[in-house]
């Protein structure tokens, strides 16, 4: 009975240990637990389309568990969606260095690398059309315009059309994706000094003012009185006897 009790106690102990192992997370370290929490939040943010928020959470996870590959994977995906291919590729490399050989997630990241290498597509349309398009100061063409192989990342897009307000917008081109930009141009309100009639009126005003000044100075009522002439014999109106 005593032996039986001992066996039973051993069995219970083993069962408890197994249960404990089964219920513990994979990352048993407290820091790893926190990292897992951040990772889960980051993935949720990514799925919700909040890529900057996802990046913050994933970076926190990566700092707490730098040897874990999964945060790098998600960071690579996030950076790709944010258009920073260089950062994405760096995270891919970090992931590969930490993941076991033949990890099935490598295929996904390889596709990501290919997309980064290909760049993104940019489509710009405007109303009205035929507006000049330039990207980061380099002219591309006129609207409607489609540009492929645009380096992923943030760019300054400028759309300019005579008579309309110039539009400068910061756009984010994602790797392997198409970025569509549709713009409704606003007609430029010309300043009064750019109106032809303003300067015509100004010129007319100048001439009128000059004429008034001329006639004021040459007003018969203001002109000098006829001159006098004096000599050794006296004075008289000039030209007189």
């Amino acid at each position, binding site marked *: 009975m005593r032996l039986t009790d001992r066996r039973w106690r051993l069995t219970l102990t083993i069962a408890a240990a197994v249960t404990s192992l089964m219920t513990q997370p994979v990352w048993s370290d407290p820091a790893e637990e926190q990292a897992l929490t951040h990772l889960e939040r980051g993935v949720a943010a990514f799925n919700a389309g909040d890529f900057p928020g996802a990046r913050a959470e994933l970076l926190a996870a990566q700092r707490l568990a730098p040897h874990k590959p999964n945060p790098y994977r998600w960071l690579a995906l996030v950076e790709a969606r944010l258009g920073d291919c260089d950062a994405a590729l760096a995270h891919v490399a970090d992931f590969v260095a930490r993941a076991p050989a033949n990890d099935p997630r490598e295929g996904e990241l390889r596709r990501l690398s290919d997309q980064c290498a290909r760049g993104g597509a940019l489509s710009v349309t405007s109303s009205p059309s035929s507006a000049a398009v330039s990207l980061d100061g380099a002219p591309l063409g006129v609207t409607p315009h489609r540009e492929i192989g645009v380096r992923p990342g943030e760019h300054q897009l400028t759309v300019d059309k005579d008579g309309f307000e110039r539009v400068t917008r910061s756009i984010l081109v994602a790797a392997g994706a198409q970025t569509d930009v549709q713009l409704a141009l606003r007609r430029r309100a010309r300043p009064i*000094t750019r109106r*032809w009639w*303003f*300067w*015509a009126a*100004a*010129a007319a005003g*100048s*001439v009128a*003012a*000059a*004429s008034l*000044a*001329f006639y004021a*100075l*040459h007003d*018969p*009522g*203001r002109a*000098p*009185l*006829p*001159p*006098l*002439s*004096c*000599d*050794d*014999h*006296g*004075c*008289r*109106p*000039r030209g007189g006897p």
Partner: protein
Amino acid sequence: MSWARARRAGRIGAATIATLVGIAAVTLTSACGESDGPCAHVAGRCLIVELDAAPSVRLTAIDQVELDLLYGGVHGTATTSRPGGGVTSLPLETSVELDVTSPGPLPIGVVAAGKLSGTVRGTGAASTSLEPGEHKRIQIHLAPPEACTAGTTYCGGDKVAGDPQTLYLCNGGGVPLARGVCVFGCIVVPAQSDRCRGGGGACIEGTKYCGGDKLDGDPRTLYTCVGGVAENPQPCANECVVAPEGVADYCR
């Protein structure tokens, strides 16, 4: 590129054209209003006389200016008015060309009377000197004249406008007429004619002198020295000439 082509090419904007028009207009106006105008074509001495009402005097226009000038030893009076008549607003200006062959600075005393419908509405005076070929501007402020007795002489400033060292004849309805500069000063004599002070030594009994030359009197009148006093006045029709020491003065 020609101007027209530049304009067509949009390189010369409306603002530029308007500015040029304005500058041209202002330049034209300025050129036409030059300050030396009345004397512009005079080679010799020329005096621009600007007349205005004295402060606090309500005189806005006149129709005739009468000037009395004493330049060097010469006296002259002349009037000027707008051709065809008409009133002239104050301030106004006229000019006097002095064709006098006198080297060096020529002292000039000017008395002006502004008339409206034949009545003196204001008188004023100023003096200056002109070098040969010099043009100068003087300002005379016209003030209502005080009542002076016609035919009586006054020092300038004593009921008549003028230089205090010059004797003038009250002209009734005209500009005071300068009699001459008082070399030794002008004496104001209440209730009598003012006169030039005699100086330069004692007079010689029985000798004739212009007033102001050793005897008190009118510089255009010849007096006889009687007991050191001016007696027997003889007005000169034109001018009384002060002769050198030892020689009697005479009428020209």
